[in-house]
């Protein structure tokens, strides 16, 4: 459908090009001089790991963020988008991952909201788009009852009535069911036939290969790879996403760990945790076991369902099917506290939201889970203080005293305080959800050391991380999740960054 993509179309049919876009967040460069363009009628897929800058780049193109330097050329002229509305006026519209609709307004009002037009003139057009794209239901109904797929469609029609030339779809399939994905792809083809250029962000590589005409890979804020899809293999694309690390170095790390890990996996005793066919919001039919003293890495991209799974296991979120067996006993009516009492602890991903009492002294967080052990029946000040001191010393927390306000600690030390809270209950299995995110290098090493010490003591660990190198380095076994399911399992003898990345992005891997 898109003929002659390549160099010669640079003048013909080019909708927009971005040159050396730079963007900083708090002094840290997120985009480092990105060049990218889009041609009429093509689907240009953007691939990249978490934090590679895909979303930031697209938000800059759609006016939600402002670039720090660089050039955006639309229709041959240099433009600046101070807000989304200006980008709309140049025919650029971004459909966010979670559709942003107004549930209490009608579908029609949702679509034309914010446009400087006479409404009545538009109802026919909106009606026509809705019909063409197969929108179910009346556009005069309120939007709150729409399914996610229809909400997404509403967003696309929003773009169309704004005379969109460039449509940006940010992970449009991550919330869709199977049938809805094929319907979406049909719609994308209708749009590209009309000459609309589509930027398609996805973590699912098979979808990218099905729908796109061109693939660009972002890594660490740079475009490292651009190729026409038909001349490109999935391996190439995956390879481009991997960090430019010396091959020797990575093998060295894993081989050094191999012996120690092999020992653990060899004397697999009883499974301490068995998860059987667990399904819930964001994951389905997940089964696996965790053995005594092993570090089980749970790899995947953001949105693969790992955190949702962990939440369901400890009873934070509801689940629809399946069971959780811990130390041979099925856990029913789970809650985080009940789980911790039997020895199953969870250290949450977002410590600010779920892990720490920021404006209280450290000791309050550290002892929060074991208050019943230090009270008789009122809380013993001395016991509390001693317990907190013990953990501050053991975990090497850089704090003046147990009374220091947690907010004044560094990110790494805050994370250790959260770890102390769970470890104080002496759990036999700990789920660590992204334990090193936003943590400085020193604290990161401390946390790795702690993981190994726990392992030595016989504590089992489930390590959830999007940093695949970290997972390879720390785990004795790795499960990869993709789109809510376990996609692959790796034993320590065949850890391979490329294969794990492939599995995380949905490429079939034979083990």
């Amino acid at each position, binding site marked *: 459908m898109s003929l002659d993509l390549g160099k010669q179309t640079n003048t013909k049919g080019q909708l927009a090009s971005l040159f050396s876009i730079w963007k900083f967040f708090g002094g840290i460069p997120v985009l480092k001089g990105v060049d990218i363009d889009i041609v009429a009628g093509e689907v240009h897929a953007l691939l990249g790991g978490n934090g590679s800058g895909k979303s930031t780049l697209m938000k800059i193109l759609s006016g939600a963020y402002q670039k720090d330097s660089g050039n955006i050329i639309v229709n041959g002229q240099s433009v600046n988008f101070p807000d989304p509305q200006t980008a709309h006026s140049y025919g650029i519209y971004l459909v966010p991952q979670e559709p942003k609709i107004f549930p209490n307004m009608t579908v029609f009002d949702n679509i034309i909201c914010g446009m400087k037009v006479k409404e009545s003139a538009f109802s026919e057009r909106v009606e026509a788009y809705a019909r063409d794209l197969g929108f179910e239901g009346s556009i005069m109904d309120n939007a709150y009852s729409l399914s996610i797929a229809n909400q997404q469609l509403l967003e696309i029609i929003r773009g169309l009535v704004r005379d969109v030339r460039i449509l940006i779809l940010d992970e449009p399939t991550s919330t869709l069911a199977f049938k809805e994905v094929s319907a979406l792809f049909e719609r994308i083809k209708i749009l590209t036939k009309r000459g609309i250029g589509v930027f398609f962000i996805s973590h699912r590589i098979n979808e990218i290969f099905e729908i796109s005409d061109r693939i660009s890979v972002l890594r660490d804020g740079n475009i490292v790879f651009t190729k026409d899809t038909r001349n490109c293999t*999935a391996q190439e694309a995956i390879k481009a996403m991997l960090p430019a690390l010396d091959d020797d170095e990575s093998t060295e790390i894993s081989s050094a760990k191999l012996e120690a890990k092999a020992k653990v996996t060899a004397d697999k005793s009883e499974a301490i945790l068995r998860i059987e066919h667990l399904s819930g919001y964001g994951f*389905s039919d997940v089964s696996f076991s965790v053995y005594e003293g092993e570090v089980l890495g749970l790899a995947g991209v953001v949105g693969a369902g790992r955190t949702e799974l962990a939440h369901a296991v400890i009873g934070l979120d509801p689940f629809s099917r399946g069971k959780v067996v811990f130390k041979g006993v099925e856990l029913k009516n789970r809650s985080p506290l009940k789980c911790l009492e039997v020895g199953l602890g969870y250290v949450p991903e977002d410590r600010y939201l779920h892990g720490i009492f920021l404006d209280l002294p450290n000791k309050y967080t550290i002892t929060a889970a074991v208050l019943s052990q230090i009270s008789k029946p009122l809380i013993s000040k001395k016991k509390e203080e001693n317990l907190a001191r013990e953990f501050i010393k053991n975990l090497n927390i850089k704090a003046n005293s147990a009374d220091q306000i947690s907010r004044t600690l560094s990110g790494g030390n805050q994370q250790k305080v959260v770890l102390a809270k769970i470890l104080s209950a002496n759990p036999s299995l700990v789920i660590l959800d992204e334990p090193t995110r936003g943590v400085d290098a020193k604290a990161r090493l401390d946390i790795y050391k702690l993981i190994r010490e726990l392992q030595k003591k016989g504590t089992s660990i489930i390590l959830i991380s999007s940093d695949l190198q970290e997972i390879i380095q720390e785990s004795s076994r790795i499960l990869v999740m993709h*789109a809510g399911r376990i996609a692959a399992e790796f034993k320590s003898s065949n850890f391979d960054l490329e294969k794990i990345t492939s599995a995380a992005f949905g490429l*079939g891997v034979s083990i």
Partner: protein
Amino acid sequence: MKFWSNLLKKREVVVLLLLVLMIIGISLINPDFGKIDNLHGIIANALILILLSLGESFVIITKGIDVSVGAAMGFAAVCLGLSANSGASVPLASFVAISAGIFSGVLNGVGVAVFNVPPIIMTLGSMGVLRGLMPVLTGGSWVDSVPQSVKNIANVKILSIDAIIWATLIIVLLTFIILKMSKKARYVYPVGDNEEGAFLLGLPIKRTKFLAYVVSGCFAGLAAILFVSQLSFIPMQAGSGQEMRAIAASVLGGVSLAGGVGSPFGPLVGGLFLTSIDSMLIFLKIPAFWNDAVAGMILLVVVLFDFTIRKMVEKENKKQRMLGKSTSYHGSTPQTRKVMEEL
């Protein structure tokens, strides 16, 4: 048929029906209640609350809250009384009152929209400031002996109904039409419903919020004119407690505290409802100190009912997504599947 069922889904319609039933019921018990004079009196008494609540609704629809409307009305009333007593004409004094209301609205609007102060804190603060300014302006005493010309506002009758009732009705209708026809005014709905979505569509969020507070202040100024003309003197506690009744009337009339929902008829019906309860209790010979408790209980019942329904809808939506999110996609065409296998 659909028209009627849609109408019944609107809370202001349900509350209005409830009100009519209650009026009929009480009239059967005590026929004096249903007399035209009494009903006319109830409506005239409800006007101040209706106006305050109307302004409050604009703020609540943007997902904010304005607890300063009572104080703003008191402040505007003092300004009106002082300027009338020093010889200003009725139109000029009214203008002063509305300006004073707008001033308080601008104060809130700047705090919330420009400096991003949480609405409850900002308006609590300005409530204190405005209440504090009242005795400062009067030197600590009440404002009494307001000129007859001001009192006369409440006495004019058109077709044997108070002119101020007509005026309030017209204001409600005008507000309704403006909210229907004007795009800028209608932005209060998307901004309150989903602020991030409104931002992505390029709506002027700050301006919309700012204007909502200004409108709220303006209506407080209008209410002050009615207050002074009906009462003919201004005590220092003028309007105190009215902010809570204004919020209650809005919510009762279907304006959602979660933002994005509500029509100008909501405050009209809600204000009438709360005011009639006071009168009904008198006619049922229930001691007056029960008023607030009964009004509060009715409000709680309505809100809990509303909340339960909203929760049910949310749950249903989440269930739908749960089904959607946990299915993965493996290529729709045989070709792609083949390509995938080869890879």
